[in-house]
């Protein structure tokens, strides 16, 4: 019932409350006054009738004793002066009705106006059925000679009540009107501060302006509320200012860090490009150096010269391996590796590593222990070998004394290859970052770009194997390659051949056509191939090559060509020209120092055998043997 009241405005609420209570009290007062007035009016009416009746009764006392009807009638008729008296009855001392007066001016149903039975044990005066009935004893000298009964209408009472009610209503209405006027005006002292407070709250909410304040002009609870609200706004404003400061600080920091990230990215790119460029530029001379140093070793040298030549050759080897790493990173960044999964005897890979690393380890005075294994797994043997090789190479690099231990084991789910060393170890906080490119564990005495582990990470990802690291600073590290077990078909196991160590002249009586636009390379290649017993036709361009072939009148067993020839001619052009001229698709090998991604993609697409500079003689020989099937 109060629900609609709850939702109206404060102003209306106040007015409603005031009007309601005022109306209620005015009505209550009026009703009380009307009631009291009615009572007093009734009392005075009774009194009046009693006096009038008593006068008449006294005047009639002797007359009734003498039964003087005329006198009594006269007496009763004198009551006509009182208009409201409807009926008067006179009884004698025996209680018999003696005389009756009827007001003829009032046209009330005469039936109702009958004199009642005499019953005057005591005088009384009562309101009954809208009439006042008065009983009076007629006495003379305390001697009762008869009785008088008066019946009076209450029109006066009614009209008086009506007048009073009318007056009350007019008074109430005018007071209410005045109250409404006054309360409408005065309620603002209560409602205005509250309304302005609520308006301010709304404004704050809409504009988000916390600097707004409300002026306090009352000392009551609303004033306190306004003070509290202002205080709250001040607190919020302060807090907001602080938050804004923090946010702007954060924004600046973010911008900085974004800029840093961009510059780091750019740096990374720059470094990548630098290495790619460097590897390309350095590859050519290094390639030549390798060929020359090998040729030098094979020639007749004194033991002192031989020793120096060997050291030179080793240095070139080291350098070459660094470039190979760089190239691998470029290759892996191009997402080229595609794992060629097949059953592989783990021992084959391990044996190969043994040959490569035993000398390196002995050189540093380290013991290299490689446990042989008869485990066969499904994997890409080249990639896996690369992983193990890199880890082993790192182990030797970062170990100054003690030993390197390569072991393998198999459990229910996985094959695990462990490479343990007694090296400098890797600090806990570094263990997660070492797999990123160009991160290197700090050492004093060795070189390396830290690419090895990055390659491991990428290859292991391609192979879907896990590489885990346990290490303690100063005590050594242990890398575990965890290869999930898959069923192996034994009949497909490829017996990868251990590279044949030394064949004096593996390619005797074979003719090779070599095309390279750089004379140094051509010379070096010619010396190397000649040492292997081959005949060499060298040319600086495809045209010169065809010319020379034409002159010699022979068909070479194989074409070895540089990729980037002069005048934007590529190795593919050379191969095509030679094939056209010979009308025969002799095996061809491209050698390139270029590691840019587009070219790598092209080589891959054409299924072309490519060797990268700096070229290792052993690799060249292996590729030639493979291509020629010898």
């Amino acid at each position, binding site marked *: 019932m109060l629900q609609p009241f709850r939702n109206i405005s404060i102003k209306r609420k106040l007015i409603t409350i005031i009007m309601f209570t005022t109306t209620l009290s005015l009505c209550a007062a009026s009703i009380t006054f009307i009631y009291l007035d009615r009572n007093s009016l009734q009392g005075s009416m009774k009194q009046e009738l009693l006096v009038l009746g008593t006068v008449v009764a006294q005047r009639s*006392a*002797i*007359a009734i*004793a003498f039964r*003087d*009807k005329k006198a009594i009638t006269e007496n009763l008729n004198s009551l006509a002066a009182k208009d409201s008296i409807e009926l008067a009855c006179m009884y004698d001392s025996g209680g018999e009705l003696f005389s009756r007066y009827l007001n003829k001016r009032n046209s009330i149903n005469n039936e109702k106006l009958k004199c009642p039975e005499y019953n005057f044990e005591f005088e009384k005066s009562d309101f009954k059925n809208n009439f006042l009935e008065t009983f009076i004893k007629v006495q*003379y000298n305390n*001697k009762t000679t008869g009785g008088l009964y008066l019946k009076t209408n209450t029109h006066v009472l009614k009209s008086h009540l009506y007048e009073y009610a009318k007056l009350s209503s007019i008074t109430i209405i005018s007071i209410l009107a005045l109250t409404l006027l006054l309360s409408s005006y005065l309620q603002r002292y209560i409602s205005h501060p509250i309304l302005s407070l609520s308006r301010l709250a709304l404004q704050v909410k809409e504009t988000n302006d916390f600097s707004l304040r409300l002026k306090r002009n009352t000392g009551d609870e609303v004033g306190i509320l306004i003070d509290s609200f202002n205080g709250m706004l001040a607190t919020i404003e302060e807090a907001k200012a602080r938050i804004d400061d923090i946010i702007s600080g954060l924004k600046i920091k973010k911008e900085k860090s974004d800029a840093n990230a961009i510059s780091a990215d750019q740096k990374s790119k720059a470094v990548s490009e630098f290495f790619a460029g460097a590897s390309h530029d350095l590859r050519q001379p290094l390639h030549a150096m390798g060929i020359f140093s090998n040729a030098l070793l094979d020639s007749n040298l004194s033991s002192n010269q031989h020793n120096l030549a060997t050291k030179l050759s080793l240095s070139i080897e080291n350098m070459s391996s660094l470039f190979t790493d760089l190239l691998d990173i470029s290759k892996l960044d191009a997402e080229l590796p595609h794992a060629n999964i097949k059953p592989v005897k783990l021992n084959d890979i391990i044996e190969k590593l043994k040959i490569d690393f035993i000398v390196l380890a002995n050189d540093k005075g380290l013991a290299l222990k490689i446990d042989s294994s008869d485990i066969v797994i499904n994997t890409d043997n080249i990639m896996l070998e690369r992983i193990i090789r890199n880890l082993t190479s790192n182990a030797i690099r970062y170990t100054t004394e003690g030993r390197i231990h390569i072991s393998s084991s198999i459990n229910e789910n996985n094959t695990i290859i462990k490479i343990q060393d007694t090296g400098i170890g890797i600090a806990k906080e570094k263990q997660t970052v070492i797999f990123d490119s160009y991160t290197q564990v700090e050492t004093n005495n060795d070189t390396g770009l830290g690419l090895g582990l990055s390659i491991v990470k990428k290859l292991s990802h391609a192979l879907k194997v896990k590489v885990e690291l346990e290490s303690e600073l100063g005590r050594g590290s242990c890398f575990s390659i965890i290869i999930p077990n898959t069923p192996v078909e034994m009949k497909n196991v490829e017996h990868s051949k251990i590279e044949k160590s030394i064949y004096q002249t593996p390619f005797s009586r074979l003719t090779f056509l070599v095309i390279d636009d750089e004379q140094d390379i051509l010379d070096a290649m010619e010396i190397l191939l000649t040492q292997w017993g081959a005949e060499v036709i060298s040319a600086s361009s495809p045209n010169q090559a065809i010319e020379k072939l034409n002159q010699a009148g022979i068909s070479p067993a194989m074409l070895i060509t540089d990729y980037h020839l002069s005048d934007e001619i590529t190795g593919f052009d050379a191969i095509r020209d030679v094939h056209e001229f010979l009308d025969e698709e002799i095996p061809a090998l491209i050698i390139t120092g270029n590691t840019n991604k587009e070219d790598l993609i092209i080589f891959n697409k054409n299924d072309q055998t490519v060797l990268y500079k700096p070229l290792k003689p052993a690799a060249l020989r292996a590729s030639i043997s493979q291509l020629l099937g010898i």
Partner: protein
Amino acid sequence: MHSHADIDEQNEQVKALFIYNFSNYVEWPNSAFKNDNSFLKICLFGEIPFYPFLNIFNGTIVKSRQLDITNTQNLDSIKSGCHILFVGNDKKENLPDLFKNIQNSYVLSIGNSEDFSNNGGVISIMRTQDQIEFEININQALKNKLYITSDLLSLARAIHQH
């Protein structure tokens, strides 16, 4: 319908009531009585037909005095004075003599004829057309040292003031 005899009897009853009422509404001074215990004497002189009716009130108390109602033919017995003296028709021929012979102070004399109040009596009770009425000679009442209330006077048909 009332018979003639009935009406006569009724008239006699009214007369008796009148006499009784007069005892009530006429004031006698205390000197009219020997002491507080003295009776209020009502003497009926002569032939009185309503005597039986009035005698019913004999011994009753009026104004704290007992009524003593007597009916006599003997003038001597009324000479010493009554408070109310009703003179019957048979005794009214020689009224002046009668009043000369009796002690008149404090005596409310009542007669049954029209001229009774004109010949030394105080009140005359008489019959008009339809009712019994009375006349009061107020001078005579005052002469007899009686006080008659105005209410009673207002009921009287005529008031003589000579």
